[in-house]
């Protein structure tokens, strides 16, 4: 190529680039123009009176899901059923890349699908329709479903309902099979070694660990760790939350709340917490405490759990689940954990297992771009009926499950295997969509659980041998049998999700107390036993200097507000 030819080629290239930039600029501005007027349109269409029945005329509903695939196949069984019986084609878009960015682009362009996964950004941008009138007038099933929590799901700012929460509204008995929340965990191998003892107190718990560690100072060639805890970044609950459970309270975060008077008090630097940390101090002097516990990061903690040499810890199951799954996949199921609800005093009823709370700002909302919100809410309402709900979780009778003589559903081993097959699920399930849908949770009137995983017999049939051995030794069927059944939640529960208001004194004081806890609790645990009391006293003094009243006042004010506004 000569010099001239190169120049020409370069010039052409520049020309193309300039054009493409200009073209891109134009096209995006066009899009904006299209987007903005339609944003104001549907407000009027929602006022027009709707057809009285759900006529089966073909309709497409576009959906944005805030999770990445798995994308269902074109001939997916459930989507086909929805199309055949309701006349609705779901045009789904799954998240690719970063959610915040995607939402930002959507909001900037006013380019929304008909229904969309919840996000506070969308509420702030006025992208979604208030739903309460739509539900009252056109959706009896949804209305019935949310009746008990009607005031709770309203936006605290303007009192409208924008989202249909997907989890946390229960009917019938509440009985999960696995507990994902807080507990004192202990290796199954330790329980097995001592013939599956039943116990409730800290002393007995640490006695077992002590004996086991003395007997087996090494596991797989590495020193055994008696008890560990994680206090890294925001995952500080492993260190801070245990005392409230030990006195029989549910997880309220940094406070314990009197269920009768609804008044919160601090427990962290008080006499409620002291016996626990004194106990940890004691086990530290015996060499049971993991000295590195408070200096480790999350990855190190996870690696430690996965190595199978940690005998016990206080944590929430979902926080260390990844490490435990790795243990199981290494074939070390006996090193996996059992959660125990320990208390200070055997006469206290444990309250580790709680009824899930409705998770606000989750689930689907209908956007201002939806052409026919009435029809959409009717479709969602239809999907809320028992028939459809069972189809989503259980599948079709005869194909995905059978009905036993007692009326309870069960699956055959082949059917269970199908449920673990990703490609099969893509063709036969609608998990992503159903994940965001409102759900009938708990038990159906016919006695069946909402999902196979929560059906005790079905759950038991799915277990590994070692799991069954542990449960049978205790005479239990599911893991939650270790815990007391949770009473219905206090209306103001839980305190940990109270908004402390950005930049307020309460936020400052809560952050200060966190800093102090992360500094003084390890110090108190790792110091020599005779120094414990002086470190503890210093901790108390420092906390009282950190303006804890500001934090407590805000919490109490909110608890009261909830009691006044969230009741039926």
């Amino acid at each position: 190529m000569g010099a001239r030819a190169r120049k020409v080629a370069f010039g052409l290239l520049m020309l193309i680039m300039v054009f493409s930039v200009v073209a891109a600029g134009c096209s995006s501005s066009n899009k904006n123009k299209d987007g903005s007027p339609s944003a104001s349109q549907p407000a009027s269409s929602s006022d027009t009176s709707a057809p009285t029945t759900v006529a089966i005329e073909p309709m497409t509903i576009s959906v944005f899901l805030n999770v990445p695939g798995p994308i269902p196949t074109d001939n997916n069984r459930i989507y086909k059923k929805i199309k055949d019986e309701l006349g609705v084609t779901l045009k789904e878009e799954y998240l690719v890349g970063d959610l915040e960015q995607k939402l930002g682009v959507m909001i900037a362009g006013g380019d929304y699908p008909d229904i969309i996964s919840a996000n506070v950004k969308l509420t702030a941008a006025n992208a979604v329709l208030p739903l309460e009138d739509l539900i009252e007038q056109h959706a009896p099933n949804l209305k019935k479903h949310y009746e008990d929590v009607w005031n709770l799901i309203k936006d605290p700012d303007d009192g409208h309902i924008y989202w249909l929460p997907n989890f946390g509204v229960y009917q019938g008995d509440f009985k999960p099979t696995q507990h994902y929340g807080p507990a004192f965990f202990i290796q199954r191998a330790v329980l097995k070694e001592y013939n599956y003892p039943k116990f409730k107190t800290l002393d007995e718990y640490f006695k077992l660990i002590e004996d086991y560690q003395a007997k087996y100072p090494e596991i797989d060639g590495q020193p055994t760790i008696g008890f560990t805890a994680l206090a890294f970044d925001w995952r500080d609950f492993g260190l801070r939350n245990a005392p409230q459970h030990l006195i029989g309270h549910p997880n309220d975060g940094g406070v314990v709340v009197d269920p009768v008077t609804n008044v919160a008090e601090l427990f962290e630097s008080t006499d409620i917490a002291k016996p626990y940390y004194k106990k940890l101090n004691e086990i530290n002097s015996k060499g049971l405490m993991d000295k590195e516990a408070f200096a480790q990061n999350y990855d190190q903690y996870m690696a430690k759990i996965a190595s199978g040499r940690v005998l016990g810890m206080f944590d929430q199951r979902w926080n260390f689940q990844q490490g435990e799954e790795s243990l199981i996949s290494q074939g070390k199921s006996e090193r996996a954990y059992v959660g125990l609800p320990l208390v200070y005093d055997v006469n206290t009823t444990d309250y580790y297992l709680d009824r899930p709370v409705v998770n606000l700002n989750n689930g689907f909302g209908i956007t201002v771009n939806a052409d026919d919100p009435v029809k959409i809410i009717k479709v969602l309402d239809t999907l809320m009926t028992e028939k459809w709900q069972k189809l989503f979780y259980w599948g079709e009778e005869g194909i995905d499950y059978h009905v036993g003589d007692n009326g309870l559903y069960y699956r055959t081993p082949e059917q269970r295997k199908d449920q673990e097959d990703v490609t099969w699920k893509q063709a036969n399930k609608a998990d992503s969509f159903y994940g965001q849908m409102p759900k009938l949770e708990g038990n159906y009137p016919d006695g069946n659980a909402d999902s196979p995983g929560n059906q005790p017999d079905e759950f038991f049939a799915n277990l590994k041998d070692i799991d069954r051995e542990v449960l049978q030794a205790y005479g239990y069927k599911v893991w939650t049998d270790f815990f007391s059944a949770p009473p219905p939640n206090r209306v103001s529960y839980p305190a940990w999700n109270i908004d402390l208001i950005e930049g307020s004194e309460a936020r400052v004081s809560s952050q200060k107390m966190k800093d102090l806890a992360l500094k003084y609790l390890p110090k108190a645990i790792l110091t020599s036993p005779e120094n414990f009391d002086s470190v503890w006293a210093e901790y108390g003094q420092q906390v009282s200097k950190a303006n804890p009243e500001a934090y407590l006042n805000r919490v109490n004010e909110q608890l009261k507000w909830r009691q006044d506004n969230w009741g039926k």
Partner: protein
Amino acid sequence: MVRQRQLIFMSFPMLIYVLVFAYFPIWGWLMAFQKYKPGFDIFDQKWVGFYQFRFLFEDESFIRVLRNTIAMSVITLVLSFVTAIGLALLLNEIKRTGIKRIIQTISYLPHFLSWIIVTGLVATSLSTQDGIVNIVLMKLHLIKEPILWLGEGKYFWGIVGASNVWKEVGWNTIIYLAAIASVSPSLYEAAEIDGAGRYRKMMHITLPGIKPVIVILLILNIGWILNGGGFEIQYFLGNGQVLDWSETIDIFVLKYGLKIGNYSLGVAAGIFKTVVSIVLLIIANSIAKRLGEERLI
């Protein structure tokens, strides 16, 4: 003036760039005197005067945080200067270009790792369970039982300094090597004739030759002193036990400003840092001037 017309014209885009992106945003400093809430216009905010500054300076942990910042900065600054210049001098003595290149490449590669990865490596190698540092020290019989490096405040500054050196030494060396390359070879030849050995040449030709570069870099770096030798490293390696030694101004601002939604505090701290930096820069510059060295302004 007229003859430089083209040059002046060419520098306009840069000037505009700096005005738009460096000077124009300064009006955002107004936020420091407000209780800023996102989503509202800056003139609709609540004005609080010097409240944010008072919060910063009256908090008893601020002195500690300031101490940590300056201490880690100075440690990092001194260590990185000494090691980078040392490595540059040593590398310069290697005559086989192949080996020199290999050493240089290996030493600057860690620069491209992000701090989250480096701190992960540091935390793992300092672990008491199977960290290589403790293993080596135990094998050498220097210690009897593993040391909990990240659990004791007294080690923290050293760990920060050492990690910084490991990550940046090769990268910092490049500029000195370039400076050394510009020293006239005739000086070395003359010295050799006078009977100077390697060490003498290093001391009397190479070092004085790169002195202007060293001074300029020092002045530039002093301006950054309140950035504490990095923010990420302290954030990722810090934990409750070493809080009194690890928390820097930036972390303090992150915790009590951004995390709890008080953006104004972050701006107030930013202003404080800028003012201190300018003062330090001017002091360093005037000292350089007194000493008759190269200087910035």
